[in-house]
C-alpha cells in the first residue's frame, strides 16, 4: 500500500530506544569524595605526626531535612538524610530554642545511582534519621540552624524554618500538572519537595479580586562541597487560560529564577499584580529540571506588603554572628564605621571577647611590627551630605569633608552626582561605597576622583590582566584607597557604571575617611571539628591586613575540650604558576596571610557527649600593645574515641 509515497507495508524496525540523556546524574558522594586530601605537615613538641588525610568524607554529613519548616508551637516529625549518620543520637540547635529528639536511624533504600557504580566508587549508605521536633510557641520566626550528633561527631548544619503562620504540607497526590494542582488558600506556606527529574509542583489559588502578591521559595541552595546538595529553584506563575490548541493549556504570567549569577544561586522571589479575580497557578521546580529526595523547599504566598523571608530572618530565628565584611556593597558604611574600624586595630584598647593571649597563639607574621596608624580621623566629626536632585539641577555642587558621607540616588539613566572635597598632600583616604537597596549587578556604582583640571586621578574600577592573559579583568570595587600627592580641591563624581540605568532604588552611600590600619576579614572554611583522640586536625585561617596595617594578628582558640591542645603549623602550598600582572592591587585589595593551626586531641582526651563551641579569636598586636580580641567564628567541636568510630565502621 502506498500513502503519499511511503510504502507502509515495508519493514519497520522496532529500533533502538536508548534515549540520550546528557544530564549529569546527581551524585553527592562523588562530590564529597572529590574534595581530595591536603597533606598536613606540622611541627609538634613530641615530633612530627604522620601525614594524615583531611577527613570531610569521614565525617557525618547531612544533606537534607524534610519538611523544611513548621509553625511555632507545633510538634512534628522530620526526616534528616545524609551520610555517616549511623548511631545518630542527638539534635543540636546552635542557638537553642528548639528541641529535637532522634527517633530512629535507618538506611535509605538505594536509588541505583549508576553514576557512582560506573565510576567504580564505593557507594556510601544514605541514612535517614527521623527526628521529633518540638517548636515552642515563642520560638522566633525565621531560620534555625541545627546539626546531628553521632558517635563520629557533629555534622554540618542545615536550616529549619520556623513560621509564624500555618504551614501546609505538599499533598501526597500527584500535582505535577496544572490540572492536578494542589489547591491552597492565600496567604499560604507550603512544605514541598522536588523529588523527580522534570518535576514541577503546581499549586492553585483563587483570588476574589485584583491583588498584588509575593511568592517566595526557601530551600537549601547548592553550596560548597561537601554539603553542596541543594535545590536551585525556579518560580513560575500561570493562568489556566486554555488555548485554541489545548484547553488545558496555561499562559505563563511571570517567571523568576533570580539568575543574577550562575555561581551564586539565589532564592527566587516574585511580586505580581493580578489584575482580575480568578484561578491562578504557581509552579515550583528546579532550574535545570533535576529532582532529588533532598530537594525540599518551602513556598510562601503572601501579600506583597508582608515581610519577606529575608526580613523575617534578619529579625528573628538564628542570630548567628555575622562575620566582618570588609568589601561588600551591602555592608553598612554609616557614621559608626570609623569606630568599628578602630576597634579592629591594635591601638584600640577596648575589651574584646578575650583580651589575653594564650600560650599556643599562632601569629600570622614572624615578629611584632609597629602599627602604622597615621592620619587617623576623628570619628565624631563625620558629616553626612545628602544629594538632592533640585540642587543638582540648579548646578550646585555639594561639598563634603573628610571624613564624611555622601548619600544620594542615581534616580535616572545618565544621572551623575558631583561633590567637592579638600585633601592635603600625603593624605591617605579610603573611599567606601555601600548600595543599601539595589546593588550589583543591577546598580554598579562607579566613582571617580578628579583634580582641579578635571582629570580623573583614579576610580573604583580595578583593572588587571585576566587569567588567560588575553584580556583585562575589571571589577567595580566597594573600597578604594588613595594617597593624594597634592593639596587642593578635588571632585568626586559618582553614577552607574553604564550610565544607562537609574531608578529610586539605585541608592548609594559613599564614605570618605582617613585610612585606618586594621585587621580586615579573618576567614576559615572549617565548619566543624571532630577530633579523634590521639589524632590531629588542622584549621587554616586567612587574615587580611587592611590599609597598611603592619602589626601582628594573634589567633586564639578558646573553649578547648579537655585533653585538646593546639599548635602553630606550616603547610606546603602548591606552585600556582606566574602571577599575571595584577594592576594597582594595593589600592583595591588587602594584604593577606594564611596560617595553619593544628588541633590535637590527646590519646586520653575524653569523648564529648555534645558539641562544644570552640571560639576562634583574632587579636591585633602592635608596639603599643594588644588590641581587643575579635570573635571570628564559633566552631562546633567534638572529641570522638577511636573505638567508637571503629565500632560503627
Amino acid at each position, binding site marked *: 500500500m502506498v500513502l*503519499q509515497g511511503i510504502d507502509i507495508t515495508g519493514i519497520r524496525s522496532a529500533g533502538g530506544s536508548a534515549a540520550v540523556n546528557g544530564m549529569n546524574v546527581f551524585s553527592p558522594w562523588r562530590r564529597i569524595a572529590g574534595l581530595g586530601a591536603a597533606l598536613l605537615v606540622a611541627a609538634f613538641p613530641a615530633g612530627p605526626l604522620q601525614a594524615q588525610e583531611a577527613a570531610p568524607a569521614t565525617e557525618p554529613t547531612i544533606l537534607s531535612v524534610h519538611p523544611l519548616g513548621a509553625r511555632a508551637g507545633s510538634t512534628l516529625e522530620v526526616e534528616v538524610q545524609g551520610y555517616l549518620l549511623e548511631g545518630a543520637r542527638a539534635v543540636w540547635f546552635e542557638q537553642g530554642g528548639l528541641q529535637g529528639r532522634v527517633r530512629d536511624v535507618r538506611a535509605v533504600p538505594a536509588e541505583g545511582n549508576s553514576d557512582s557504580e560506573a565510576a567504580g566508587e564505593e557507594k556510601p549508605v544514605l541514612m535517614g534519621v527521623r527526628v521529633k521536633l518540638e517548636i515552642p510557641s515563642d520560638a522566633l520566626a525565621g531560620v534555625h540552624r541545627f546539626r546531628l550528633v553521632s558517635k563520629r561527631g557533629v555534622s554540618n548544619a542545615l536550616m529549619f524554618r520556623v513560621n509564624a503562620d500555618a504551614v501546609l504540607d505538599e499533598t501526597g497526590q500527584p500535582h505535577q500538572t496544572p490540572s492536578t494542582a494542589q489547591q491552597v488558600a492565600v496567604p499560604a506556606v507550603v512544605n514541598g519537595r522536588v523529588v523527580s527529574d522534570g518535576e514541577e509542583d503546581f499549586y492553585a489559588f483563587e483570588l476574589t479580586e485584583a491583588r498584588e502578591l509575593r511568592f517566595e521559595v526557601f530551600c537549601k541552595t547548592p553550596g560548597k562541597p561537601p554539603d553542596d546538595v541543594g535545590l536551585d529553584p525556579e518560580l513560575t506563575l500561570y493562568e489556566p487560560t486554555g488555548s485554541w490548541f489545548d484547553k488545558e493549556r496555561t499562559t505563563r504570567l511571570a517567571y523568576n529564577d533570580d539568575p*543574577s549569577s550562575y555561581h551564586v544561586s539565589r532564592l527566587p522571589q516574585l511580586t505580581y499584580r493580578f489584575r482580575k479575580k480568578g484561578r491562578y497557578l504557581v509552579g515550583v521546580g528546579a532550574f535545570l529540571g533535576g529532582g532529588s529526595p533532598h530537594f525540599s523547599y518551602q513556598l510562601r504566598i503572601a501579600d506583597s506588603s508582608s515581610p519577606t523571608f529575608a526580613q523575617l530572618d534578619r529579625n528573628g530565628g538564628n542570630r548567628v554572628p555575622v562575620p566582618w565584611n570588609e568589601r561588600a556593597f551591602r555592608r553598612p558604611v554609616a557614621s559608626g564605621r570609623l569606630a568599628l574600624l578602630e576597634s579592629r586595630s591594635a591601638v584600640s584598647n577596648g575589651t574584646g571577647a578575650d583580651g589575653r593571649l594564650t600560650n599556643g597563639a599562632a601569629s600570622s607574621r614572624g615578629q611584632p611590627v609597629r602599627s602604622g596608624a597615621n592620619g587617623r580621623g576623628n570619628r565624631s566629626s563625620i558629616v553626612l551630605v545628602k544629594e538632592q536632585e533640585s540642587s543638582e539641577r540648579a548646578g550646585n555642587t555639594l561639598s563634603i569633608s573628610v571624613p564624611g558621607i555622601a548619600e544620594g540616588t542615581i534616580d535616572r539613566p545618565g544621572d551623575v552626582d558631583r561633590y567637592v572635597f579638600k585633601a592635603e598632600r600625603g593624605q591617605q583616604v579610603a573611599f567606601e561605597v555601600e548600595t543599601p537597596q539595589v546593588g550589583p549587578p543591577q546598580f554598579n556604582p562607579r566613582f571617580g576622583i578628579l583634580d582641579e583640571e578635571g582629570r580623573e586621578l583614579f576610580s573604583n574600577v580595578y583593572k588587571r590582566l585576566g587569567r588567560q592573559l588575553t584580556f583585562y579583568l575589571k571589577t567595580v570595587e566597594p573600597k578604594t584607597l588613595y594617597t593624594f600627592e597634592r593639596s587642593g580641591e578635588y571632585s568626586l563624581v559618582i553614577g552607574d557604571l553604564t550610565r544607562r540605568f537609574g531608578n529610586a532604588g539605585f541608592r548609594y552611600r559613599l564614605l570618605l575617611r582617613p585610612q585606618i590600619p586594621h585587621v580586615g576579614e579573618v576567614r576559615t572554611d572549617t565548619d566543624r571539628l571532630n577530633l579523634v583522640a590521639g589524632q590531629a586536625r588542622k584549621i587554616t585561617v586567612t587574615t587580611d591586613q587592611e590599609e597598611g596595617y603592619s602589626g601582628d594578628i594573634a589567633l586564639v582558640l578558646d573553649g578547648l575540650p579537655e585533653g585538646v591542645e593546639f599548635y602553630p603549623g606550616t603547610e606546603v602550598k602548591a606552585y600556582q604558576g606566574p602571577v599575571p600582572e595584577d594592576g594597582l592591587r594595593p589600592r583595591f585589595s588587602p594584604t593577606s596571610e594564611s596560617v595553619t593551626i593544628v588541633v590535637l586531641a590527646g590519646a586520653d582526651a575524653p569523648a564529648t557527649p555534645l558539641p562544644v563551641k570552640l571560639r576562634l579569636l583574632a587579636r591585633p598586636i602592635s608596639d603599643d600593645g594588644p588590641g581587643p580580641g575579635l570573635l571570628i567564628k564559633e566552631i562546633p567541636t567534638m572529641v570522638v574515641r577511636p573505638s567508637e568510630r571503629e565500632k560503627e565502621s
Partner: protein
Amino acid sequence: MFRRYAPEKGRRVGLGRLGALALGIILAGQGGDSVYAGGSARPFSFPREVGGILTKRGCNNQECHGSVKGRGGFKLSANALYPRDDHEWIVQGGVYQVLSPEPLGSRKPRIDLKQPENSLLLTKPTMEEPHGGGDRLSRDSAHYRTLVEWIRAGAPYGREEDHRAREIQQLEVSPRQPVIRVDEEQQLLVTATLAGGLTEDVTDQVNFESNDPEVAEVSDSGLVRARQPGEAAVVIRAAGRAATVVIGVIRQPLAGYPQASQRNFIDRLVFAKLRRLHILPSEPSDDRQFLRRVCLDLTGTLPPPERVREFLAGDRPGKRDELIETLLNSPEFLDYWTFRFADLFRVGKSVQGFTKYSRLYWEWIRDGIARNKPYDQMARERIAAQGYGGPALHYYLIGGDLPSPQDMMGEQVRVFLGRRLDCAQCHNHPYEPWSQNQFWGMTAFYGQLTRVGDINTGTAPYNIILDDPEGHGVLGKGGPTVHPRNKTEVRPAFLSGEPAGQNAAEDPRASLAEWMTSPDRPEFAEAIVNRIWGRFFGRGIVDPVDDFKLANPATHPDLLAALAEDFRAGGYDLRQLMRRIVRSRVYQLSSFPNASNRSDRTNYARAHPRPLDAEVLLDAISQVTGVPERFGTKPEGTRAINLVSSDMYPSRFLELYGRPNRQMVPQRKVEASLGQALHLLAGSTYTGKLSGKGSRIGRLLAVGASNAEMVEEFYLAALSRFPTAEERGELEGWIEGQASRQRAAEDLVWALIGSREFAYVH
C-alpha cells in the same frame, strides 16, 4: 525591442540638470577616438576611461584580477571601485598584501612608457604573452587604442575635479523589467547619471553578466537571448558602479489573463508580476491546506483533530481571518516566535557560556514577543546593550572572553541589515561597494565594548557589559580599533562611510543602533520583512534572506519596499507584518501547481512545500503519537521549541534534521539525508513513540475505536484532513486483514508521520 546604438561612434548623452553648454563641454572632453586620432594630447580620466575598459573587458572581476590578491601578481580593485589603487598597481606594479599597504617583493610596472605597445597591460590581454585570462582585447579595437594613447600620454591619473564631474552616480537599465519569449532577443540599454546631473548612454562601456545563462544569456554588447522559461538576473558593471536587471522569460503569452482578486498590496504586487510573466497563480488553497499551513507557520503547532473538524465544518466567510487572529494571540504563537528569534539571536549555553545567562537572554526575547515590542526597539536594545540585562548577556562567550569586535559587528549587520560584510574584513569587498575601511569603521563601534566583573571573585560574580574607552582585550581584541593594513587607529564610521558624531565617543553602540534602525535607512526594515517573508514562503524576496547584494537582487523589489514601508509605518509591529502576509491571497494560494507555474520557484504563484524545521517536526511527531519527547531533566511534555538552551539536550533526531548549534547566525539545512531515511526506518523517534506510554494509539484502542475512527483520527491529527474515500477504504481493509490491531495501527501511524505530506508545510 530596443535597437542597439552603435558603439564607439560617439555617445548619446541626455540633458540632465546642466544645460547644453555643459553638455558641450563634456562631449568635447571625452569625444570619440577620431577626435584624438592625430595623437595630440588630451586630458585622460583614468577612473572612467581606463577603469571603464578594465571593467568592460572583465579584467577586474572577482574571478580575475579583481579577486582578493589579484591574479598572476597583478591586482585590480573589483569593478574599478578604487581607481587610485588601480592606477598604482598598473603604473608602479607590486603584489598586493592583505595585512600591509606595502606591496610584496619587487614592483614591476604593467606599462612601458617608452614602448607603449610592449606594455604588459596590452600584451597580456591580446595574448602576445601568455595570459591565463585568455584573449580579452583585440589590437584593432578602440579600447586598445585608448590604452595606447593613455600610456603614450604618460599614463596620467587625471584631475580629480574631472573625475568628480564624470563620476557615474547611478546606472539605469532599460527596459526595467523585461519579459521576453523563449528564443527572442532583447537589447539592454544602460544609462549612467553622472555627478553633474548629466545622463549618458554607457551601454558600450559596461560589462554584462547573466547569473543564469540557461534561462537568458547576454552578449558583451548587452543583447539578451532567452533560452528557457524562468528568470535570470543580468549584472551590469561600469567603472565604480553596478546595477542589476531581472529578465523574465516566458514560453507563450497567455491569452485572456484573468483578474485575480486581491486583499492587500502584497497581492497587487505579486499578481502584477505574475501577469507580466504570464504565469497564472494557483487556485486558492482549500480550508485543509490553509488550516495546517497557517497553524504551522504562526505557531509551529499542528491543529488538533477536534479543531480540524470544527474548522472544516464551518462556512463563515471570515473564518480564516478569525483563525489568524486567534493564532496571533495564542500562547503557542509566543512559544514559537520566541523559538524563532532565539534561533536568530542565538540563545544557547555554549553561546552565552552559562545556562542562567542564556535563560535571562531568552526571557528578554520572550518578553519582547509577548508584549509585541516594536522590532526596532528590540534591535536597538540588542545592538546597544549594556549592563546585566538579557540582551547584554548575548555577548558573553565561554571562557570569560568576549568575541572580537569585528565578529560582533559582523553578526549584528547580518542579523539586522541582512548583509554579510565578512569579506571586507581583510580586503575591499569583492562584490559589493564595501571597503575594508568601511568594515573597520563599523568595527570601531565595538572597540570599546568591555566586560566588567569576574565570575571567580566574591564581590563580582557576574558580567556587566559596557563601553569603555580602554576597551577589553590586550592583544588587539578591543580598545582603539586598528586598521589591519595601515595600522592606524580607526574612528567609528557608519557603513555609508559617514563618520560617527560626537555622541559616539561616549556611547558608540547607541549611535550605531540609532543609525542601523533609522527610518531613513531602508535596509533595516527590508532585512526583517524579507526574513519573515522567507519564513512564510520558504524563500526570501532576497534569498538567502541575509545576503542582500547586487549580485543577489530581490525578485520583487517593489514588494520588498512596500512591505518595509508598511512595517515602518505600522511601528515595526511583527504581528501586524505576519497578519498582512497570512491574510494575503498570495499566502493562501494552493500548493497544487498549474501548467504555467509548475516550474516557477521564485514568483509565489503557488505555495511551495517546505520541510518542517527539526524542532517543529519532532514536536509534531510527539503531538500525533501522543508520546512526548523527554529532554534530559526537563519536565515531561516540554516541547523542543520551548528548550531555552537547546544545545544542552543532545538529540540524534534534532541533529539529523538540521538543528543549528547557534554558534553562528543559523542557516538551517533543509536537504534530506541518508541519516534521516535510516532514522525514519529504525530511529527511536519514529518507532519508539508509536506505542509509548500514553500513546494516542493506546488511548484509541482502550476506548474501542473502530478502524474507521482510528484512520480518521490519525489523518486529522497528522495531516489536518479527512482521509479520501480511497484512502479510507484501503486502509480500513488493510487493518482488518492484520492479525494485530495494535501492530496495524502502529504501521499506519508510522507511515503517516513518515510521509512527505506530514513532514512538510504545504
